[in-house]
């Protein structure tokens, strides 16, 4: 079967820094691919490249077989690529419901033209993520975990075929985590492919069908969660990070 997303030799250089270097992988329909790696590994950069926020320095991106590397963000969104932002970006002046309605009005295939229908749909998504009781609050009034839910609802309202989730689970407690897991699985069951970023490994192990590990912008491992997490190179990358974090705490 043709992969939904196919990434080949993707490289992104910023002035004097290669954030992503020669990364290739495929993502199949209805698959959940976990993307892990220490802070600064290039995970968000990868999402930015797929969603079109950045242009790749080199490499090839295909979505459902068609090259998308040259398309601007909004065209990729129209094709069916939805994302969340790690640094959460609600529209602060809009109500929670209207934030999500923007996703329904635009998004895949250009979304719904009718405001009433879009808001109705937005309401469903809010219920789905458990935020319906906050629908009329201004988005800026939401606390941390609720903002994560809002990010998720906005992306879901776009009705995407490929969902890119950038650390929507960071900072959630166990119960909240389980709730998000359930949402992601349900979305996947509807045939959506999901790329989930999380740098806490435990959180992602049970959710992902497959794992991909980035370190210093390079792919260091890819495969079944169990097998990847016992890979010495991966352990090394994480141990190294933990040591660095330990030393960093002293300064």
């Amino acid at each position, binding site marked *: 079967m043709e992969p939904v997303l196919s990434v080949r030799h993707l490289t992104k250089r910023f002035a004097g820094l290669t954030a992503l270097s020669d990364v290739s992988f495929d993502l199949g329909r209805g698959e959940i691919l976990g993307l892990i790696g220490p802070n600064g590994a290039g995970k968000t950069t990868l999402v930015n490249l797929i969603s079109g*926020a950045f242009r790749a320095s080199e490499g090839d991106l295909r979505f459902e077989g068609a090259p998308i590397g040259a398309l601007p963000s909004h065209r990729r969104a129209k094709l069916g690529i939805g994302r969340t932002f790690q640094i959460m970006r609600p*529209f602060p002046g809009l109500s929670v419901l209207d934030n999500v*309605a923007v996703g329904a009005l635009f998004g895949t295939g250009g979304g719904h033209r009718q405001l009433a229908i879009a808001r109705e749909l937005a309401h469903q998504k809010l219920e789905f993520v458990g935020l319906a009781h906050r629908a009329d609050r201004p988005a800026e009034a939401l606390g941390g975990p609720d903002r994560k839910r809002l990010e998720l609802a906005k992306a879901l309202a776009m009705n995407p075929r490929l969902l890119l989730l950038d650390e929507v689970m960071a900072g959630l407690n166990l119960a909240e985590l389980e709730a998000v897991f359930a949402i992601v699985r349900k979305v996947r069951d509807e045939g959506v492919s999901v790329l989930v970023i999380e740098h806490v490994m435990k959180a992602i192990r049970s959710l992902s069908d497959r794992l991909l590990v980035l370190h210093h912008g390079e792919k260091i491992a890819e495969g079944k969660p169990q097998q990847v997490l016992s890979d010495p190179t991966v352990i090394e990358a994480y141990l190294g990070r933990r040591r660095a974090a330990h030393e960093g705490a002293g300064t």
Partner: protein
Amino acid sequence: MKRPLARAGIVAAFVVLAGIPWIASPSIVQFGINMLLLAALAQGWNIIGGYTGYASFGNSVFYGLGSYGTAIAMLRWHLPFGIGLALGTVIAVIFAALFGRAILRLRGHYFAICTLGLAEVMTAIVSNLEITGRNTGLVLPLLRGDVLFYELSLALVVVATLIVAWIAHSRFGYGLIAIRENEEAAAAMGVDTTRYKVLAFSLSAAISALAGGIHAYWITFIDPVSAFDIGLNVKMIIVTVFGGPGSILGPVLGAFVLSGISEVLSTEISTVAGLFFGAVIVVAVVFMPRGVADLIRRFDKYRWRYFAENVRANRL
């Protein structure tokens, strides 16, 4: 809900406004024309500034292009006023669409300053063209009809307000607001940000140009300095921000209130009036940063705490 009541109130206010020139003195009608044109200009600015979040200083350029387009069509080519007005508007819209593509990539202060520069350059260019009468300007045929100009200006305010009302409740408007609130996120959700910004800028330009054309024919004399006056653009911003940027009626309210205040004051010593005007702006920005529209909407709930809450939210 008090929606129907509010609507009836607006319609009643409109009827009263439309009736004023038939009973009021000429000077009041003239004051009314200026006030209504300012309201229309503010409403035009509201689309690009209030809804899209781009602080344009270029709307006075569109106003100037509308004035000159109308004047040149009537004087040089002997076309009727209506066609001149349409021509001026088309020119302004084309200008907005062309320059918009280039300068709407700039964000924040940079966009504001670039449009400011554009306004300066346009003034100078117009001051040096033969067809625009260089810096002596143009004199239009005289039409004594303040009532007509008043009703025309009122019609423009109504049309502009209806357009803004449509924007506020449409997919297009949600796209603009998304751009204002967070442009990257808007693009990631599928908003064609460049196209939307250029459209908003062009719509804003059309309204400004119509006001310019009406004003030119009414006042019968235009020159580069007055037609491209950046001070007018500053007024649009003040009036909109005072009234409530990104609201449907705020800019109109702002134009009415501030025109009224400055009219009352200018009968006193003009320096003191200017001083007071500045102080009003300072106090308004500090205590009601979201404008009169927001004050009206939320005063019921917060009462006098409203002002303190605003200060608390924005201070460091």
